[in-house]
């Protein structure tokens, strides 16, 4: 499965936040190429532009300048609906604070992206159950987030990210709110998923994580260092 097809291609991407009085240049010409089946980490101090880059990669935000191709499709200038479709079908998000809907069960949370994708109820249920089994929560499907541990919540979030078979999984500090053991399990899970063929990018402060991945990107002052090729 891990062909060398490019999933992400950034070309001189700039992002400027204009607050009226001052302009903040969050990204200053980022070039990046992510290929199918890669496992990367993006590290950098806070304020370096990591989150901005992740938002752009996840099609939550668009660049002020430069071009961004997702699977060959130019992202900037796309309609809000098309961006929502890309996020829904092609990107799986995993957040530091899980971002589960607190009053919905694990299964309902996992079914959510399929609701937006118009998957019929029965299939939603089937796929939801499958993917929860896969992350080891087959016995926790009807539990609400408050009834789950941090590690379990993050597994639900990962199941949710996987359920629409995305091209790219973007994880923002996925172990940041977890104890060491749980964090370790989550990283193991990511590794398994990568071995199964998923393309995964983890944004992290955790100094140990980069060692587990194929490639590490360093972000500083809005620029990417050791971007392509290095670290492999």
């Amino acid at each position, binding site marked *: 499965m891990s062909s060398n097809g490019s999933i992400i291609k950034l070309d001189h991407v700039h992002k400027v936040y204009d607050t009226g009085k001052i302009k903040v240049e969050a990204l200053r010409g980022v070039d990046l190429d992510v290929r199918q089946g890669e496992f990367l980490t993006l590290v950098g101090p806070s304020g370096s532009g990591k989150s901005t880059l992740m938002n752009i990669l996840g099609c939550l935000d668009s660049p002020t300048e430069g071009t961004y191709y997702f699977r060959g499709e130019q992202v900037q200038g796309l309609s809000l609906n098309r961006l929502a479709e890309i*996020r829904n079908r092609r990107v799986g998000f995993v957040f530091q604070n899980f971002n589960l809907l607190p009053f919905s069960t694990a299964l309902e949370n996992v079914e959510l992206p399929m609701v*937006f994708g118009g998957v019929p*109820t029965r299939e939603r249920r089937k796929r939801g159950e499958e993917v929860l089994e896969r992350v080891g929560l087959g016995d926790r499907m009807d539990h609400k987030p408050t009834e789950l541990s941090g590690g379990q919540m993050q597994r639900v979030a990962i199941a*949710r990210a996987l359920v629409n078979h995305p091209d790219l999984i973007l994880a923002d500090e996925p172990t940041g709110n977890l104890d060491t053991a749980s964090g370790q399990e989550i990283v193991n899970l990511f590794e398994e998923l990568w071995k199964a063929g998923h393309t995964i990018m983890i944004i992290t402060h955790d100094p140990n994580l980069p060692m587990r991945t194929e490639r590490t990107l360093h972000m500083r002052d809005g620029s990417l260092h050791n971007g392509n090729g290095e670290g492999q």
Partner: protein
Amino acid sequence: MAAGVFLTQMMRDMKSQKLRTFLTVFGILWGTASVILLLAFGKGIHAQQQKAFRGMGEYIVIMWPGRTSMAYQGLARNRQIRFREEDATLMKRQIPNIGLVSPEYTLWDAKGRVGKTEKLMRVTGCWPEYSPLRNIIPQMGSRFINAEDMEQRRRVIFLGTSLAEEFFGEENAIGRIVLVNGVPFKVVGVMRQKEQDSSYNGRDTHKAFIPSATFKAMYGYEYVNNIVFKADKPAHTERVKKGAYDVLGAKYKFDPDDEEALAMWDTTENEQFFSTFFMAFRIFLGVIGAFTLIVGGISISNIMNVVVEERTKEIGIKMALGAKPRFVMSQFIFETLTLTAIGGLLGFAFAVMVVSVVPSFNVEDYIGTPEVSTSVAIVTLSILGFIGLLSGWFPARRAARCDPIEALRL
């Protein structure tokens, strides 16, 4: 499709915010009930007023002789005009578009006696047409004066409802004899109970009616008290009134433009006045009700704004997971419409319930029977739908426009 998801989510919100949900629904309930009840009572009062007013007759004109106020063809002014019974025949024959006509003789304070019961009563001599003109309807199994009574000058009598009761109590009056100033009359009919709020010589329930031919023969009256008539259609009333001035003016030699020569009470004018009055009254009530409903809508809108605020994070999560703006919007519009629909239906049910228990309080004579008509229902429900949509629209649009990145930071 997503309706199931919307519904689950909504139930959850409603459960977690019971008081708020209740107040929202109550606002709409109250507004809906106000609109419906105000319109229903307005309609009932109007119908009651109309019914009572029509107790005297529908679209009729009562005409009395007057005094001339203009000199005409060498005749001095200030001449008294008087009507004879044949004037009614003349009018019937010569006025275009005239409908029913009847002369009316009145015998004030006649002595009526049945057995030992003696009553002073008012006896009216009239034509059979008087019955439909004045809405004097015989009870089941009885009749009004007819053409044969007229031809044969029969001594038959038709009794007003109260009069019949005073003479005969619960017993059947038909075929019994009433002595009028000592002369026996056979009762052929009794009037069906009716509402009547206007009159010109007493309430019909206290009167007795005999054929004009019999009246004239017995009492030797040369002149009738007045003539009652109506046009073939209410819209022709003015034309027929003018016709009466022309025809009678030609006979009695007065100027057809001399308004004083005849005195007329045109009840169609009252009808028009009341129709206009009640139309305005109902619009007024409707507007009050609609504003109550709008206030309910505003409160729903406010609450939905709060809901959107509270759920910003959730909206952000959903958008990150690929919910389209349309989806986010429809969720909130769905919620607003559902709340509005629940409130509306409850309000509707409440109003229908109130309307259905009102008759048991026996207040019909004062306020009539309120009625929830289809048109009232349709008007209310469309106002409701519109308000629901409008009050959901703005919060929903706010939700759909929220920036997922900002929302996720919360």
